[in-house]
């Protein structure tokens, strides 16, 4: 669906995207994570042909980026969606539907379907200037789906949405996945990404620094063990179950890949003769991982 090799963008002396190489297969919900200013929006804009890259190659849906015909199968929700505020919600969708090449009854049916899906049927005849931030974002999402796209770019889709709106977006992303649509999701709301994405890439200063498949391998767990008489052999033996082992005052902390390691660790400790008083596993959140990957030098964007 998306293939990029060394995609770069410089604005004057400032590098927005240093080196973007990624591959997103069809049907995947791909999360693009990073702090503000990491180059996420610039990357999406390059893939959509809104800005020309300074270097590198990329194809989207098999066509070189910037090919206007390929955009017939692409949907895009920009960050902070805005459109001419004198247009009514339904008119906005009709206009964008026509640009997608749709018309007549097929377009009208699709418009009503989407208005119902994003819960805007009752506001469809009102001009956009009367819409709240969340309503604008939802009508923006509807316009991105008019053409039943094969690939959808969502740039911070939940910004400005209340919790109900966020759940709606989450459900729509899941429906898109069920239909086999590929979703490229830019976000810094980690809970959002964790709940919906198959795979995430972490972007830092315009470069992918880490990729994780969320669906197959859980991010991992931290296990805390209270042990009596832990010998260096015990600590060395624990090494086969995980890493980052720290031993302080009879408490051992270590990182394991998942919950299934816990009974095995307990069984091994008991048979090896160590006294196990307590054991506690904490699932690591994407947020912890984000902070680890981004490093200490990150400042609020």
């Amino acid at each position, binding site marked *: 669906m998306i293939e990029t090799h060394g995609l770069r963008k410089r*604005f004057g002396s400032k590098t927005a995207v240093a080196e973007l190489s990624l591959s997103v297969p069809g049907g995947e919900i791909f999360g693009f994570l990073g702090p503000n200013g990491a180059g996420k929006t610039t990357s999406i*804009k390059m893939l*959509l*042909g*809104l*800005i*020309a890259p300074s270097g590198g190659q990329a194809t989207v849906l098999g066509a070189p980026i910037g090919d*206007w*015909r*390929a*955009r*017939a199968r*692409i949907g*895009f929700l*920009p960050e*902070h*969606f*805005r*459109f*001419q505020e*004198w*247009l009514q919600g339904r008119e906005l969708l009709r*206009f*964008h539907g*026509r*640009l*997608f*090449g749709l018309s007549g009854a097929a377009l009208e049916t699709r418009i009503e379907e989407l208005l119902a899906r994003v819960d805007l049927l009752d506001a469809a005849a009102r001009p956009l200037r009367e819409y709240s931030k969340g309503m604008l974002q939802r009508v*923006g999402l509807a*316009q991105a789906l008019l053409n039943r796209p094969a690939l959808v770019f969502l740039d911070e889709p939940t910004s400005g949405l209340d919790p109900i709106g966020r759940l709606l977006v989450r459900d729509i992303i899941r429906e898109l996945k069920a239909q086999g649509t590929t979703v490229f999701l830019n976000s810094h709301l980690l809970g959002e990404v964790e709940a919906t994405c198959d795979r995430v890439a972490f972007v830092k200063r315009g470069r992918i620094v880490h990729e994780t498949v969320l669906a197959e391998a859980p991010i991992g767990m931290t296990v805390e063990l209270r042990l009596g008489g832990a010998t260096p052999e015990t600590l060395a033996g624990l090494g086969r179950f995980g890493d980052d082992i720290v031993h302080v005052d009879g408490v051992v902390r270590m990182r394991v890949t998942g919950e299934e390691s816990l009974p095995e660790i307990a069984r091994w400790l008991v048979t090896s003769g160590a006294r196990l008083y307590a054991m506690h596993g904490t699932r690591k959140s994407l947020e912890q991982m984000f902070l680890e990957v981004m490093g200490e030098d990150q400042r609020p964007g």
Partner: protein
Amino acid sequence: MRALLTIIHLTLHETARRRILLAVVLCGLACLLLFAIGFYFVEHDMRKQAVPLIQRRMMLNFFLLAGLYAANFLTVLTAVLLPVDTLSGEIASGVMQTLASKPIRRAEILLGKWLAYWLLVAGYLTLLGGGVLVVGKVLGGITPPGIGQGLPLILLEATVLLTLTFAGGTRMSTIATGVTVFGLYGLAFIGGWVEQIGTMAGNDAARRIGIIVSLIMPSESLWQLAAHHMQPPMMSQLQMTPFSPASVPSPAMVGWAAGYAAVVLVVALRQFQRRAL
């Protein structure tokens, strides 16, 4: 083609919905009404005082030229003010991102908007110019000569300004575009007078400066040429009014201005194609 028509439709719809069209038409009609009232009184007075026919016709022709000059100026103003925000404003607000990510060429966005505004400007000129002519015919029984050449020349002048405004909008902010295009118009205006006065004073250098300025910005010489066509030859030869050019621009200026507008449009299309949105 379909995308182009959709953009034209949206643009026209916008001017109607935002009451821009209404404001423009109402102001135009107010100007026409004022002109008609003035024309009526002048014509009525001259008839009462039994001014000789030839003199009366000259006077009314002068009055009609003044009306056409106002129509020319208002059309030019409209050609710059109506579209000045359409590209830069939509780029700045992010509206353009949603538009340009659709399966259409950027050229279609620009040309669609350009055509829609050109239609509006042409319609406005028809309303104002036509209105002045109707007033002349109905109230004074006269029609100036050369209308078939004069009005298209004014439209060409407005086309040059409209296209420059679009070219500015692909790169500059709304205010910068407005200031630049009106600045060029002002330059041409002064250049035109330098040329006319230089010719009258027999100063070749001043005349040449005026001609060079009109090559940089042909708007004023197009009006001069239009005005030359739209008055009786005698009025023009005797330079009886401020609208009778002493130095009549060469007919080649028409070709130059058309080529100028075409080149500026191509530049606008290229710049918009490369513009980061």
